[in-house]
């Protein structure tokens, strides 16, 4: 057979590696800033761009899509070429992919800082960026499949299956969850409302974890772990089961983020069952990774790359053990909305994604620069300081989470709630401080790595095009007579992609479609009315400032919650919520029943200086809301968009909206005046107050019999 000569493209790998390092540090700095803001509210800097509600999405988007995203592409572009014995399909596509992705990151950072957000966690980016992501993702897939088609290795190694599943599932998730109606260039409303929006969002959110943070990294594990240990994976059989079981089960698990919410009971149960089953393939994968080192554990002592990889795989095991546990309803009742979730997420993010990325970087850079690592000692220090950082981060957060939950649920013997919500906030300060320290250590480790790798780059000479040779793939393949169906699919990338897609679509469809088909079945509550134009504008300010990052709008049916907040939330309350704003974390109290609780002037003063109204508060100040004017000209477009989405405003209402808005604003301004506050009716604060006073008010106004019927 003729041997063909070709070259691997290392340049694109190098570019993605540099981007990973850069965005990793940037994303972690944003995380550290967010952590400090919870300890020292002054670090919000009294600027709109640097308040927690905007920094937190910047942090999550940066570490997920910029740090891990570039890490994925670095690892995929390196391993794919070698596993297929082929150069990437097109250098041009590689280039578009790289620069396109960096453009997305920059646009994301700027737009999030400016408050341009859809208000859906991990999918905050507005519609123009969503479209750009779709295009660049297709470029990535095109390049990957092009390479697969011109490969010189017939069999697709298991890592590639994970890459293919990642590509196809992320595409599906991103498109379905991002369907929105644009109002202007940087503003859109989710096509879905309330319960449906929540289900789609967490089907997306959970699977962003699954198919962006997990499956591609498992692919990388299956390549780089054997490579670094110089021995094949423990069991290839297990990896086949691991792959299919994992992608099959993961897609169903989304509703475990919505336990005890207004999501239908059967969907919650379905999510729980599949979440618990998930432990099997997850641990199968972890065991497969760790046992690859059987008989080679002595290497781990000396090889810093293996150290990082081993801790990464162990952290994966811990996080995926905890995940199913947290999805059990009784445990979730305690953990949800607390810092426990934050701890859980960071074991995965810092341990699994962080350490695996670091391990790969330490391995890949010296290889491509044909030199040794500048300082093994420094890398070892990074390993220990990073590990310490993870522990210092996670332990206080677990502690804090459990403490919060116990405080929220404790009653006195007389049957009164024992603690004010504020007590659970003030008691968190030392834990939040320890967490910030842990995060700072992790960041210092990452900076040490950057220094070490830059030095390595300086002392080496880069091999942009690596020579390789392999026999061409014969056109005809003579199958073994006893060839099996699975081996058939292992040679066929397109069919593998289609089958993966079918597998994930089944889960998605069965989970989501029934909720949509019976839209009319959401028990309507006669008193739930669409938002007035002013409330709608106020709601958009609420979304813009990222209030959902700290406040939930979902009272769960527990005595501790109904005593604290009021009647628990019903599905019918959210039918006009595009997007839903249930939130996932209570750094501050739930707001679902806030309306009418305080006078307008309380909110005015509270937004100007939260501690003046609630001493001990760590909420940022929002002075600009008192000065900035609501953009009245956007009202017509917003009402029109809502009408398109089925919100029942009377016909032609968009033209009357401005007048109604003015009237309601003047009422609030008059209210404020009674309490000695002089303000003009067109300020943003007035719209926000209108929205905050609307929260839960409709349910309170509902006829008693109607609520009783829903409560049962």
């Amino acid at each position: 057979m003729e041997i063909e000569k070709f070259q691997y493209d290392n340049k694109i790998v190098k570019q993605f590696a540099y981007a990973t390092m850069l965005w990793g540090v940037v994303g972690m700095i944003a995380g550290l800033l967010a952590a400090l803001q919870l300890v020292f509210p002054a670090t919000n800097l009294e600027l709109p761009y640097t308040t927690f509600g905007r920094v937190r999405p910047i942090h999550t988007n940066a570490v997920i899509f910029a740090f891990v995203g570039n890490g994925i592409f670095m690892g995929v572009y390196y391993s794919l070429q070698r596993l297929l014995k082929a150069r990437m399909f097109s250098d041009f596509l590689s280039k578009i992919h790289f620069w396109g992705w960096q453009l997305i990151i920059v646009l994301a950072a700027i737009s999030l800082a400016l408050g341009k957000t859809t208000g859906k966690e991990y999918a905050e980016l507005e519609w123009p960026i969503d479209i750009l992501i779709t295009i660049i993702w297709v470029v990535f897939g095109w390049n990957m499949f092009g390479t697969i088609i011109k490969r010189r290795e017939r069999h697709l190694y298991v890592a590639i299956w994970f890459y293919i599943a990642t590509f196809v599932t992320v595409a599906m998730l991103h498109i379905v969850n991002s369907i929105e109606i644009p109002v202007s260039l940087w503003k859109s409303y989710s096509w879905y409302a309330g319960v449906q929006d929540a289900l789609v969002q967490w089907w997306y959110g959970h699977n962003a974890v699954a198919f962006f943070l997990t499956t591609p990294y498992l692919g990388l594990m299956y390549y780089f772990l054997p490579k670094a240990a110089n021995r094949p994976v423990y069991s290839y059989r297990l990896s086949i089961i691991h792959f299919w079981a994992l992608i099959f089960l993961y897609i169903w698990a989304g509703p475990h983020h919505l336990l005890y919410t207004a999501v239908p009971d059967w969907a919650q149960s379905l999510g729980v069952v599949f979440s618990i089953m998930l432990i099997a393939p997850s641990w199968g994968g972890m065991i497969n990774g760790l046992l690859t080192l059987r008989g080679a554990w002595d290497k781990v002592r000396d090889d810093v790359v293996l150290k990082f990889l081993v801790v990464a795989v162990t952290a994966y095991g811990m996080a995926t053990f905890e995940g199913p546990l947290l999805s059990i309803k009784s445990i979730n009742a305690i953990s949800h909305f607390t810092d426990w979730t934050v701890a859980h997420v960071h074991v995965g993010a810092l341990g699994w994604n962080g350490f695996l990325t670091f391990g790969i970087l330490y391995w890949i850079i010296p290889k491509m620069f044909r030199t040794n690592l500048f300082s093994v000692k420094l890398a070892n220090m990074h390993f220990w300081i990073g590990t310490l950082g993870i522990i210092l981060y996670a332990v206080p957060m677990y502690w804090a989470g459990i403490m919060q939950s116990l405080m929220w649920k404790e009653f006195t013997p007389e049957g009164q709630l024992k603690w004010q919500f504020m007590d659970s906030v003030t008691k968190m300060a030392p834990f939040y401080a320890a967490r910030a320290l842990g995060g700072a250590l992790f960041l210092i480790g990452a900076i040490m790595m950057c220094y070490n790798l830059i030095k390595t780059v300086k002392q080496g000479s880069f091999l942009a095009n690596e020579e390789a040779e392999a026999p061409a793939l014969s056109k005809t393949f003579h199958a073994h007579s006893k060839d099996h169906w699975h081996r058939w699919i292992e040679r066929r990338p397109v069919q593998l992609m289609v089958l993966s897609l079918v597998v994930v679509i089944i889960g998605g469809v069965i989970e989501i479609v029934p909720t949509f088909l019976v839209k009319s079945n959401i028990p309507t509550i006669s008193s739930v009315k669409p938002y007035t134009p002013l409330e709608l504008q106020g709601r958009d300010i609420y979304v813009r400032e990222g209030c959902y990052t700290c406040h939930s709008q979902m009272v769960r049916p527990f005595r501790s919650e109904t005593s604290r907040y009021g009647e628990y939330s019903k599905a019918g309350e959210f039918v006009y919520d595009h997007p839903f704003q249930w939130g996932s974390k209570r750094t501050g109290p739930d707001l679902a029943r806030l309306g009418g609780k305080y006078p307008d002037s309380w909110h005015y003063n509270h937004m100007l200086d939260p501690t003046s109204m609630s001493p001990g508060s760590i909420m940022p100040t929002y002075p600009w809301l008192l000065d900035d004017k609501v953009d009245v000209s956007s009202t017509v477009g917003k009402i029109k968009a809502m009408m398109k989405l089925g919100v029942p405003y009377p016909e032609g209402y968009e033209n009357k909206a401005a007048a109604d808005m003015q009237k309601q604003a003047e009422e609030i301004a008059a209210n404020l005046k009674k309490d000695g506050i002089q303000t003009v009716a067109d300020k943003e604060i007035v719209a926000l107050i209108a929205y905050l006073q609307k929260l839960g008010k409709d349910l309170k106004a509902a006829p008693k019999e109607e609520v009783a019927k829903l409560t049962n």
Partner: protein
Amino acid sequence: MKFINYLESITGIGIYPLTSFMIFFVFFLGVALYVIKADKTYLKKVSQIPLDINE
């Protein structure tokens, strides 16, 4: 306090989880069977792909 007010009335909702479980079960069984029956030498060869020194 159960959410019995929502979707309970769709006839045959039980078929959804049941179908999904059956699909998963049958598929999983297929993969498991294949994996058990798979040719050892072939698997060994395949698992060596990343270690090929030909790069």
